[in-house]
């Protein structure tokens, strides 16, 4: 298992849990790093303070890789500007593209996301685009230079789990890049299920942020993600689609 690394744009990570942004607190980040083993922490550039008061950038340990996102962008141009700003702020070359033209559901705009991915990848960013699970879009993102593809599991903050399961599975099966399941993961069992399917990593925030016991929930996610990953790597046993397996082979009549 030691060689089982998550590789994003040439960077290797041991942990397959990524802390999302949205609901931030010092306790949440501490729990995610210490108990969930998170090595990548998302940070909304829009949430960065310019003054001294508890800047979220100060919460993030130096050992963690910062993943700034472009939350607040309504089109590709705005996402590109926010990504460049993040780089200037010293957030590194990673960027998660989030482009939303909808304040109600916060659903990603796939078309604008492809455009922003292409521009930023050419500028040397490690681009992680947040998107709807659409195979054609995922292929376009690959061609645009994305380092991973991040389909949403369910509406953001909904804790409803793998609502888009079948479509995410298609991406896992067809796309060569890591598929990171983002948004909507509400409990460890759902994270485990995503990993069993072959997802490369899981991103979560609300599920932890709203838990009664943060450290315990963080630890639960760590265990669940590791369990799912191990199950996937072990080669899943058979899963019966319907009915019982015939004890006598159906093809027994065939002669050598």
């Amino acid at each position, binding site marked *: 298992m030691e060689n089982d690394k998550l590789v994003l744009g040439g960077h290797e990570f041991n942990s397959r849990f990524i802390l999302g942004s*949205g*609901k*931030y*607190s010092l306790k949440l980040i501490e729990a995610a790093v210490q108990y969930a083993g998170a090595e990548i922490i998302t940070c*909304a*550039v*829009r*949430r*960065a*303070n*310019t*003054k*001294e*008061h*508890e800047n979220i950038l100060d919460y993030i340990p130096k050992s963690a890789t910062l993943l700034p996102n472009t939350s*607040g*962008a*309504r089109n590709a141009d*705005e996402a590109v*500007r*926010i990504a460049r*700003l993040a780089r200037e702020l010293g957030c590194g070359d990673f960027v998660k593209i989030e482009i*939303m*033209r*909808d*304040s*109600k*559901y*916060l659903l990603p705009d796939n078309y604008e996301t492809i455009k922003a991915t292409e521009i930023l990848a050419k500028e040397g960013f490690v681009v992680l685009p947040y998107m709807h699970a659409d195979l054609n879009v995922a292929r376009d993102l690959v061609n645009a230079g994305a380092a991973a593809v991040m389909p949403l599991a369910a509406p953001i*903050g*909904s*804790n409803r789990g793998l609502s888009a399961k079948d479509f995410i599975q298609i991406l896992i099966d067809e796309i060569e890049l890591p598929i990171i399941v983002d948004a909507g993961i509400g409990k460890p069992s759902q994270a485990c299920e995503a990993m069993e399917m072959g997802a490369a990593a899981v991103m979560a*925030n*609300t599920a932890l*942020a*709203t838990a009664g016991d943060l450290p315990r929930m963080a630890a639960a996610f760590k265990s669940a993600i590791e369990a799912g990953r191990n199950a996937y790597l072990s080669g899943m046993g058979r899963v019966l689609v319907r009915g019982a397996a015939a004890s006598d082979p159906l093809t027994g009549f065939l002669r050598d």
Partner: protein
Amino acid sequence: MNYNDERYFVDSDTLSPEALARKHRIETDPSARSNHMEYMKGMEVIKSDIHDKVMNHVDSVDFSKYTARDVLAALDHHTCTVEDFKALLSPAAAPYLEKMAQRAKLETSKHFGNTVYFFTPLYIANYCENYCVYCGFNCYNKIKRMQLTMEQIEHEMKVIADSGMEEVLILTGESRAKSSVEYIGEACKIAHKYFRMVGVEVYPMNTDEYKYLHECGVDYVTVFQETYDKVRYEQLHLLGHKRIYPYRFDSQERALMGGMRGCGFSALLGLSDFRKDALASALHVFYLQKKYPHAEMSLSCPRLRPIVNNDKINPLDVHEKELCQVLCAYRIFMPFVGITVSSRESKEFRNGIVKIAATKVSAGVSTGVGDHEEKYKKDECKPRTTEENARAAVTGGNAAATESEEAGGDEQFEINDSRSFDTMYKDISGEGLQPVLNDYLYV
């Protein structure tokens, strides 16, 4: 309902007999007042179907028809329909306030986690050309008027920014003559230097004027309709631009057309049927969000407060329980919307409601003009002494306003929660919540 509007009317001893006679005439004789549905010269008319969509519901709603069964069904539904929302606003929902609060809390935590956003309002002028009978700034109210110079504005903003605040809301009274669009724009340019988020709550403008303000750094426009009841609107807004109901109604849409990122809405609860006004406010957001899905919307929920020279003003039948019901219904109906609770409400109410439905609070508030420096030097914002309270009780006025006469212009209304920014920060953190100073980027 008998509204007894007499309680709003206060005569100043400085008015000439002619002016007084005119004031009395427009207060008592509807025929002496202009048509509140007719646009004034220069007011832009936009083509919009939002008003009709909203008012079709409001005009036809009968809150008495909803039963406990409707309320429980609404709480059981995964998403909240307009019909469900009406049930949650109805009197039948009152016994289920705790259940509503539980559901509202769940929705708030799903969308906002445990975060609470902070902002500070800054009044840069209190001149006003309107006669809105319930408002401390109304043109007939004898208060100390003031307008800050650009130097004073910069100084005030620096004081506020130095405290750590990242978001400012710039307010004026509604006087185009005294506080021109350019004056407000210049103030916003200064604000843009000191703050990440600049909002305005000023008189309604045309689309090109909102576009200009956006270029000056503003991204958020708040306009309160006060009441959506056209009859009551006409009886309460007797003079000035604000009297024109439809121009005010379309303000947010013009702001979005002008390029603003978001807008704020509210009725002033207590002016008319609060359930209908709450329904209208929320549907105003609901339908405008459908038309402009990228826009970030927020709702406020002010109740009437006493003003300088008139302590008889109160929120009528909107007690804290009713206010809480409205806020829970807002949250369940529109989980994505920001909800602001102002310093009109008490410390206890604000501490409680941020755990249920509210996501934004003002801190370090002054509704007077130009006295933040004094406020920010203190641990608390002008706490009243016993003597000041006694004086307020005797004069019926606002003791704090008397004090502020030395430093600046009088206040728009009496605030209830006078906590400073630092105290608010500590209190909100102490409640297990996460204060957020910035969640915004001007792009």
